[in-house]
């Protein structure tokens, strides 16, 4: 445990409140007491916030499904959540299958080598076919826990996102945190490499690219008196909004939520 910097340490790590300098000569006990009080107050706020969010969530949602925390959680949760919602919906799966098949040509137009996207596309098509032929939730679980299928699905959803961003580069350019980066560079470093985490820009692009509406509930302290909800519509007609998939976001991670 650190015994230095106790007076300036203002982070809310649980150990920080105990890291007092008993051996130092110029101990500022008042200052340390103040820091400790602040920590306790923060802990209370955090606890109340978690209680509040849980209570609010329980009003509307019955389950949460935890996803693997490997940086791919948004895409993996999306893939699983989407297929789960449409297990028996042949029409919708057909629509999605066509989008999957057509993405390859778009990628080739954007300069990708055919064989480097074909292998991924084929495995995703195979996955969709498996679901069509008798998909139930245990089956889907098995598929998404098998790396050979699951990672290909994640990679292809990343390509959906990347292609949509690139094809609408002018629109998305102003969303970038680093304005000197081009959309193409952003896609190369922040979208396509596996395990890169997702932000709002990725979510907007994927929702539009595959035409699926999403809702994200943020548990990130940005609002303490009500739930922070962001809806990502796949069309501009927001009155019709109904999310296919709902995510719970906690900093750095997405899980799935299931409505009552």
């Amino acid at each position: 445990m650190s015994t230095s910097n106790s007076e300036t340490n203002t982070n809310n790590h649980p150990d920080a409140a105990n890291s007092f300098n008993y051996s130092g000569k110029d101990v500022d006990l008042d200052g340390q007491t103040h820091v400790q009080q602040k920590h306790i107050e923060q802990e209370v706020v955090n606890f109340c916030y978690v209680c509040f969010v849980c209570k609010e969530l329980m009003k509307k949602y019955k389950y949460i499904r935890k996803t693997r925390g490997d940086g791919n959680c948004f895409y993996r949760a999306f893939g699983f959540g989407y297929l789960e919602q449409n297990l028996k919906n042949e029409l919708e799966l057909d629509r999605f299958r066509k989008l999957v098949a057509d993405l390859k040509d778009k990628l080739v137009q954007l300069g990708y080598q055919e064989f480097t996207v074909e292998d991924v596309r084929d495995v995703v098509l195979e996955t969709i076919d498996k679901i069509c032929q008798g998909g139930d939730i245990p089956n889907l679980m098995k598929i998404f826990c098998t790396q050979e299928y699951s990672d290909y699905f994640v990679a292809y959803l990343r390509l959906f996102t990347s292609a949509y961003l690139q094809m609408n580069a002018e629109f998305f350019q102003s969303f970038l945190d680093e304005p000197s980066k081009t959309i193409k560079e952003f896609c190369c470093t922040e979208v396509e490499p596996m395990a890169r985490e997702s932000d709002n820009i990725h979510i907007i692009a994927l929702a539009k690219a595959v035409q699926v509406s999403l809702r994200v509930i943020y548990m990130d302290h940005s609002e303490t008196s009500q739930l922070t909800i962001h809806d990502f519509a796949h069309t501009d007609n927001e009155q019709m909004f109904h999310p296919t998939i709902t995510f719970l976001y906690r900093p750095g991670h997405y899980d799935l939520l299931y409505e009552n």
Partner: protein
Amino acid sequence: MSGGQMKRIMIEVKKLRDIPQTFILEKAPDEDSSKVTNTRTASSSADSTSNIIIGRILPKSAPYSQGSYQVEIKIPADFPFKPPEVKFLTQIYHPNVDKEGKICVDLLNTAEAWKPTTPIVDIVNAVIKIIDDPKIDHALNAEIAQQYQNNRAQFIKTATEFVNKYALPRT
């Protein structure tokens, strides 16, 4: 290994055969051995040794342009989601290659640069580019990097000696 992965590797190998001006392919995983691999359990660690590509790169700038250099490209079990590992088998005197033959190529940086859609041909070209045009601020051998910057004549002399001693023919 999945079918998708084997198909991909076979095409990668074919593409590597198509660039005789920059790369001479010497060893590649063949489809028959992959069928044997497929019948084994997926987690068998012995599988990894069957996924090695070996070939000689043909740099274009002096003194390296006088020879060819054997490199090993090891394809990981979770390719293309993890990048291949590239290593020099032929000794080469270069600031970006360490004593074990390890070379640092930006493309292969898992966290920031590696994408499943990067073709292996691009990796080979990136290796040749760094040999032709050393990147001193990413040196793996600090001594050679220093010599490259401060005593270019001596650097070229030693590099040429290595070429004469270890480099392989270009045909």
